[in-house]
């Protein structure tokens, strides 16, 4: 009988470990001046340094060091006063040098932590994820395996290499072992990568696009029989390309490992590949014999020894932590939890904030972005921010606030702007969407409505105020929705002696 997840977490305690690789968004590579632009034609961004040609010498990118320090500080790390690069030797054509320049026993940042919040059965709980190190290295080239049935390496006749990516600055952020997460291990893993991504984005050091590979996560997990205190053998899952996949990969691995242990089998320390469709993993290479990288200090590079004053200068420029900012905005805007989560999940927090900064009411800004605009965006399968910008939305909200537009008209303006009919002002002009604010025009419509529904009018005269709704509706219809309903109501009630 196979163990289900609930059984697994009753019998075993998981220990997590997460390795995140993040490509920096510097203009140039880690050790040479080649461009890092994504999507260029193959091998158009290479030079003797990143091709590993004889006689070439690497020189460190200053901004990459600064970014590494920013990341370390944001993750509460100590910045090493002295750190060095090392060669990681391996025989594989994704690095033309046959080694990758990395850091080994002298990384630039050590001993940090990141707190993440999880919704648990007992309410929101904070889990501390301790950071072992952040080190600098270079990314590898991209391989294309030709001749196999599936484009995979097995069965391929040969491989084709594009070294545009080789040498792009890469930061590896490694956690310590994370114990004590129990059944929440998958959520903690996801929350950690999410929070890390948000921090990296707020620092402006990376594009952090998991789908483009600028943020990649290797998820390690091991199981220990409940209460035994004996650490199990871990597996490392690669190819985890979305936040949701981080959660699913840990979940799937916990079930797989528990079922092996339950049957008295042993866990092999290996790299596994996440399968997006099934949420399961398949085995990759075994790590038990493969790893022997013969690290040694990189003789072509001198040590990195950042001045304390420079570190403090960088510290003083760090932006507000995303989790703190979210709490602040939620309080300032008085947003209920559920709506706040929806806004964050839709990645519209920045956009709503920009709209509010232009003078829009926070609730209105949120409602437009998450409501109408998101709805159309979903239909068209595009980003909401590609349809409208904060300026346009703020302008429309302010026009409603000043009474120049009704909510109903505003909807038409939004539709017009999305259709490319121009700015909000132009759409209003072209579609003739001005609120009918001319009282005499409204009075004519009101008298028309009373004439067509005399009995309703009598009921209102007799004190039945709710009955006025039908008359207001008729006026709104007669004016094509361009009247201000509140003003109509006011005029109508006055006309019928019900002020």
């Amino acid at each position, binding site marked *: 009988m196979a163990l289900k997840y609930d059984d697994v977490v009753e019998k075993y305690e998981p220990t997590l470990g997460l390795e995140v690789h993040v490509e920096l968004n*510097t*203009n*140039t590579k880690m050790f040479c*001046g*080649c*461009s890092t632009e994504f999507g260029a*034609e*193959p*091998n*158009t*961004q*290479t*030079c*003797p340094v990143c*091709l590993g*040609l004889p006689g070439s010498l690497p*020189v*460190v*990118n*200053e*901004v*990459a*060091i600064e970014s590494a320090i920013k990341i370390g500080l944001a993750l509460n790390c100590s910045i090493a006063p*002295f750190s*060095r690069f090392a060669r990681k*030797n391996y*025989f*594989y*054509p994704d690095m*033309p040098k046959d080694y990758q320049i990395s850091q080994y026993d002298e990384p630039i940042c050590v001993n940090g932590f990141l707190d993440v919040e999880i919704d648990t059965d007992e309410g929101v709980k904070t889990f501390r994820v301790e950071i072992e190190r952040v080190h600098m290295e270079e990314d590898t080239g991209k*391989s*294309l*395996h030709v001749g196999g049935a599936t484009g995979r*390496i*097995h*069965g*391929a*006749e*040969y*491989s*084709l*290499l*594009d*070294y545009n990516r080789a040498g792009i600055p890469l930061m590896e952020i490694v956690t310590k072992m994370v114990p004590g997460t129990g059944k929440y291990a998958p959520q903690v893993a996801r929350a950690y990568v999410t929070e890390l991504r948000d921090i990296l984005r707020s620092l402006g050091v990376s594009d952090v696009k998991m789908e483009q590979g600028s943020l990649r996560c290797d998820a390690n997990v091991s199981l220990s029989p409940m209460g035994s205190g004996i650490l199990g053998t871990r597996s490392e899952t*690669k190819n985890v390309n979305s936040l949701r996949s981080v959660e699913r990969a840990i979940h799937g691995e916990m079930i797989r490992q528990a079922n092996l242990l339950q049957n008295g089998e042993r866990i092999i320390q290996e790299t596994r*590949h996440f399968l997006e469709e099934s949420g399961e993993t398949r085995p*990759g*290479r075994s790590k038990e014999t*493969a790893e*022997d990288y*013969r690290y040694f*200090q*990189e*003789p072509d*590079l*001198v*040590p*990195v*020894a*950042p001045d304390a004053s420079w570190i403090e200068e960088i510290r003083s420029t760090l932006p507000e932590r995303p989790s703190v900012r979210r709490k602040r905005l939620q309080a300032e805007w008085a947003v209920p939890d559920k709506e706040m989560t929806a806004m964050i999940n839709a990645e519209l927090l920045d956009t709503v904030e920009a709209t509010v900064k232009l003078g829009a009411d926070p609730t209105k800004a949120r409602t437009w972005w998450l409501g109408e605009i998101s709805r159309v965006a979903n239909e068209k399968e595009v980003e909401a921010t590609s349809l409208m910008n904060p300026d346009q939305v703020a302008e429309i909200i302010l026009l409603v606030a000043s009474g120049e537009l009704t909510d109903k008209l505003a909807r038409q303006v939004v539709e017009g702007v999305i259709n490319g009919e121009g700015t909000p002002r132009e759409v209003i002009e072209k579609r003739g969407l001005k609120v009918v604010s001319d009282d005499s025009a409204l009075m004519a419509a009101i008298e028309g409505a009373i004439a067509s529904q005399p009995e309703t009018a009598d009921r209102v005269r007799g004190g039945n105020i709710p009955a006025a709704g039908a008359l207001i509706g008729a006026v709104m219809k007669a004016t094509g929705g361009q009247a201000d309903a509140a003003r109509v109501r006011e005029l109508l009630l006055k006309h019928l002696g019900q002020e």
Partner: protein
Amino acid sequence: MAAISRDEVAHLARLARIEMSSDELDHLASELDQILHAVDRVQEAAKDNVPPTSHPLPLKNVTRPDVVIPSLSPEDALSGAPASDEQRFKVPQILGDAE
């Protein structure tokens, strides 16, 4: 006591993808052993207060600004490659080494 065994030399040769005959392994194991013993003598002089050095220059923090400089043309980049295809470096089957 040998500083390096014949098996270790064979392991290193395998990692570096250097094919070696049995005779070569015997020969190299003893030569490397002598070299390592010589290094050991240097090690004796280097006490705990002498940090390992990666190079003899007293330099640190040598960096360059983050400014793009022109890359090689793909033709030049590929000109030294034994084989290329689709503007990429063509390498033999990698099967079995790694994913």
